[in-house]
């Protein structure tokens, strides 16, 4: 009787399982499809993002130059017989060269239009050239000088020739001159070194990101130097030494909350405390770094605590059992095992800090600053702020520079994340 009942019930189980199998498979397939779809959507949008960014920004890495036959005349460079290479009127040399190129242009207004083909910085090129090679004095040589931003845009196909003359930034005459220069092979496209060696500028062809890069770099140094040791120390204390009571819970809740506070609030805090109260100069990477350190501290604490928690208790017990003190347990065993996780948290925090803009607006790092900073208290901007500033500019040439700066920022982030992966691999140990 019992055996019969058992047989019946096993048969029932088999039937029920078989009946439900189809439904289970359908559900699994559906879930699988959902996952694929979600991943595909993500990849497509990432692709669109990168495509638009690179197609817009890649051209900013090259720059149009005009090759001019410059006569380094002693009349201009050494007006009183004594050469004054620092403050000589190099612009006059550029003007003369252009006028020689187009002798037919004699009208003053037309001549002024003609000189606008080259960048306002063309004179500095000549100064650098003669500083490098003083023998040039009195000689005649071909020198490449940067074209003005409008010519650069024309060469890159960003200005429509067929537009009405009043609506395009270049006159018919300028178009004609440029075409004839191109025919003579005087137009060149070179790598845009100025993008990396110059600070910000009102002239797009002179604007570079060095100031912003250095500003971001100094800030990140301050940030990591402060937030990593503080965050790790806090995490160790909270996990290993602090008594588990209501205060610990309160602190935990507050740290989690702090990680979610909008970043601009940290900017206001930085403005009130570091600038107004302590008196650190505004726009300085030091203030930015301090604010970003506050911002990343909760992230690092949370990640470090998770890393410490994931160290198996058996390792702690083993060390305690041999007679290690709690300090020794932490520093000999827990910390080495938790380090990869802590580093990952730190790098994630740093990546977030690198991309942060809002708090920097509050502490004056949004100012127009031409000279790259040479220290922690020099005024500076940061990469994301520079992107924000350029995106705000009406000039066409700044649009491509905005994209270029974004590409540089992403490359910076990529390098940091790669470093994180390498470090994690390096420090990772098995147990």
């Amino acid at each position: 009787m019992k055996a019969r009942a058992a047989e019946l019930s096993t048969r029932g189980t088999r039937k029920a399982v078989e009946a439900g199998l189809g439904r289970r498979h359908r559900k699994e397939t559906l879930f699988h499809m959902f996952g694929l779809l979600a991943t595909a959507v993500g990849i497509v949008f990432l692709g669109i993002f990168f495509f638009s960014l690179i197609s817009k920004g890649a051209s900013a890495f090259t720059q149009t130059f005009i090759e001019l036959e410059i006569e380094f005349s002693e009349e201009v460079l050494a007006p009183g017989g004594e050469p004054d290479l620092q403050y000589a009127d190099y612009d006059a040399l550029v003007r003369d060269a252009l006028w020689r190129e187009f002798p037919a242009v004699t009208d003053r207004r037309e001549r002024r239009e003609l000189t606008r083909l080259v960048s306002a910085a063309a004179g500095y090129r000549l100064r650098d050239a003669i500083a490098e090679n003083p023998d040039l004095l009195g000689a005649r040589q071909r020198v490449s000088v940067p074209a003005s931003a409008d010519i650069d845009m024309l060469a890159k196909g960003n200005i429509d020739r067929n537009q009405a003359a009043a609506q395009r930034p270049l006159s018919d005459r300028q178009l004609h001159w440029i075409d004839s220069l191109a025919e003579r092979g005087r137009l060149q496209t070179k790598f845009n070194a100025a993008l990396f060696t110059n600070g910000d500028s009102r002239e797009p062809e002179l604007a570079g990101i060095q100031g912003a890069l250095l500003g971001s770099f100094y800030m990140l140094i301050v940030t990591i130097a402060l937030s990593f040791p503080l965050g790790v120390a806090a995490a160790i204390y909270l996990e290993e030494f602090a008594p588990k009571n209501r205060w610990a819970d309160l602190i935990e809740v507050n740290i989690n909350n702090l990680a979610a506070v909008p970043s601009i609030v940290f900017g206001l805090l930085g403005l009130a405390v570091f600038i107004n109260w302590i008196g650190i100069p505004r726009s300085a990477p030091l203030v930015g770094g301090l604010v970003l350190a506050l911002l990343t501290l909760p992230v690092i604490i949370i990640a470090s605590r998770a890393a410490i928690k994931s160290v198996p208790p058996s390792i702690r017990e083993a060390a305690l059992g041999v007679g290690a003190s709690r300090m020794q347990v932490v520093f000999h065993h827990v910390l080495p095992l938790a380090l990869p996780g802590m580093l990952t948290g730190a790098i994630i925090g740093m990546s977030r800090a690198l991309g942060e803009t809002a708090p920097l607006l509050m502490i004056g790092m949004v100012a127009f600053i031409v000279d790259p900073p040479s220290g922690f208290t020099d005024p500076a901007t940061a990469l994301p702020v520079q992107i924000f500033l350029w995106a705000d500019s009406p000039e066409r040439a700044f649009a491509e520079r905005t994209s270029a700066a974004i590409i540089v920022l992403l490359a910076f982030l990529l390098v940091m994340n790669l470093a994180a992966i390498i470090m994690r691999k390096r420090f990772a140990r098995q147990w």
Partner: protein
Amino acid sequence: MTELKPIGGDPDKRTEMAAAKPGDRDETPRTAVPKTATRRRQLEEISELTGKTVGHVRCKEPLIVAEKVNVFYGELHAIKDVTLEIANRQVIALIGPSGCGKSTFLRCLNRMNDSIESARVTGRITLDDQDIYSRDLDPVALRARVGIVFQKPNPFPKSIYDNVAYGPRIHGLAADRAELDEIVYSSLERAGLLKEVRDRLDEPGTGLSGGQQQRLCIARTIAVNPEVILMDEPCSALDPIATARIEDLIDELSENYAIVIVTHSMQQAARVSRRVAYFHLGMLVEVDDTDRIFTNPQHKLTENYITGRFG
């Protein structure tokens, strides 16, 4: 009978104990549903748990003396009035059903319970006539004298050499590298591991097999030259061959050390120990020579346990 438990043993056990009301385990033994008569008899047996230990709690030349030890985990009274003497150069096995407090008692002997915040220990435990719970005694110093081997082999994720050298290093037992080498080699030798690992001392200890890892843990413990070795189910994660090796090792080590071993295997207790202490629901029910316990137990509960009626 040997029960495999997840990592770390004790934290899980604590929750298990907290979850189960005292007495749960005996009213519903794990074997088939008891008939009413058996059930009534078991309930009667529980009523015999008077807290008075039968057999011989005292021994000759005691090294550790525990007097009226009580342990509380918060509200839970895990160990009740346990009095026990542990002799030098002898193996004593602590047996009993799961959650009976034998591991808790073991961990009192080197103050491993200190790291559990809710744990509270009363009574008096002396090692060589010195109160180990006195304020003047640093648990670090105590643990150098009372080593412990855990249920799950837990070598450090360091090289085999560093695993063994760790204790001597932090306690400053070796003056130079040669002395340290000497300690490491002799410890591995005594743990019966040297032959297998001599050529790969710089490889990670976690790469060894389970049984080798456990012997490495034993080597790590004896490298500090303790007076007592506590073992918390040292073989429960090992296969029979590795278990046999560890048991041989325990036998050899008992010539020099006092060994307290917690085990779920009655055969193991019978094989390795000279004395056996039977715990039940936090009480020490019976202590006696191993032969007596297994051939002629005085207490009904002991008899039930060793004959496999529950546990």
